[in-house]
């Protein structure tokens, strides 16, 4: 068995540092006037919050840092934003859109 057989699900935590793998492309589509996430045989249409989160997924920022930036920007309670961010990133990780 190769090492790939031991793959495990990534669980997103406040200290996780999410990043888009090279084959996932967050792109603005000028023709349609919206953002897309291009993935293997999938096109996702992120909502405005998801776009803000994805733009910050650079492998350096932690989930906590991303949430705290967004909390300031949207003047919203940090704990709430953090919980939402984690749940969104978990979903994206399960879909293979981010690595952490």
């Amino acid at each position: 068995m190769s090492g790939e057989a031991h793959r495990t699900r990534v669980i997103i935590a406040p200290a996780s540092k999410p990043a888009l793998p090279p084959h996932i492309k967050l792109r603005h589509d000028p023709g349609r006037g919206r953002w897309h996430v291009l993935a293997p045989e999938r096109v996702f249409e992120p909502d405005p919050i998801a776009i803000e989160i994805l733009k910050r997924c650079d492998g350096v920022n932690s989930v906590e840092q991303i949430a705290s930036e967004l909390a300031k920007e949207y003047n919203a309670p940090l704990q709430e934003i953090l919980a939402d961010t984690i749940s969104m990133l978990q979903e994206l990780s399960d879909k293979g859109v981010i690595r952490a």
Partner: protein
Amino acid sequence: MNEVAPMEQFSEKPLVEACARAPVGLLAELTHRCPLQCPYCSNPLELDRVNSELTTAEWQDVMRQAADLGILQIHLSGGEPTVRKDLEDIVEVAAKVGLYTNLITAGVTLTRDRLKRLKELGLDHVQLSIQDVDEANAEKISAYKNGLAKKREVGKWVREFDMPLTINAPIHRHNIENLPNIINFAVEMGAGRIEVANIQYYAWALKNRASLMPTRAQVLKSAEIVEEAKERLKGIMVFDFVVPDYYAKTPKPCMGGWGRGVMNVTPQGRVLPCHAAESVPGLEFDNVKDRRLADIWLHGQAFEKYRGTSWMKEPCRGCPRAEIDFGGCRCQAMAFTGDPTNTDPACKLSPHHLAFVAAAEAESGVANPPAFVYRRMSPVKATAAE
């Protein structure tokens, strides 16, 4: 985050610019040549010959036009796309114009060097098909020796180059019992995605339906296996499960609706709303050599014919699912009922539905199914057809 429903604003918005109602994906059948002879091949029975294929420059122009039209993803398929020596030149242009490039391959003719080069040129994703994880059975299905060993190698290269891998597994009565092993194979290969794709019965698969159709019990069992595996492999591998619609109650929204999100270009350059559309009479297919892709998409007769819901008659007309499944598949309606404007016989409201289900049950119930009719080019005719 939602997955894009192709062209969701299509019927509502005025025709401002092409990209406002643009397709999301384009399936480029670069060639019909293939070393494998799988009896369920989705290519038409009448295969395009090598000397009629579009040239490198013509395919490159299709890529540029596709990007201009607003297409996001290009699926490089066949036949076997890697038998074209200019695949690199086509991928290079596709990547340069910003298309997300997907190689759909059987893998057996691919080399490590070529894959490396394709990655450097911008290839985004590889979809590798397998026939079975039992070598002898895989050979029987594909009529190709040692294919599985080669596919293992290709899968390893894909991962070595840190490219995303999808394993595509067409499922039918001759491999459905192996489904758990097929899923394990994909996990071992490091695939991020698996397509458990029950055969859809068109073209070669329709010709071989009596050899391929699984029983209802097998299909139900396979759905359970997929559900369990999906949960167990959450965050490890994404599943796409294509159900066999002979045992369904509602039809599939074929191609996400006719002329709605996807287009297909044949090796010769004919532009089709779906890869089987040539089996539907009364359609005129434009060629990229004669007309711009955007113009074909927007105004081509074949695209306009069954786009939207106005072509529908009962029971599709007025059905609450009319804009969910779009009446299902025109090709299947044609093949089974002889009239492409009928509702898909997979729909329980179709007067042909019981006969449709009965055909599947009868064929799958036969203990010794007929031998495969393998996918091969028909011999060249010595004289022109009358």
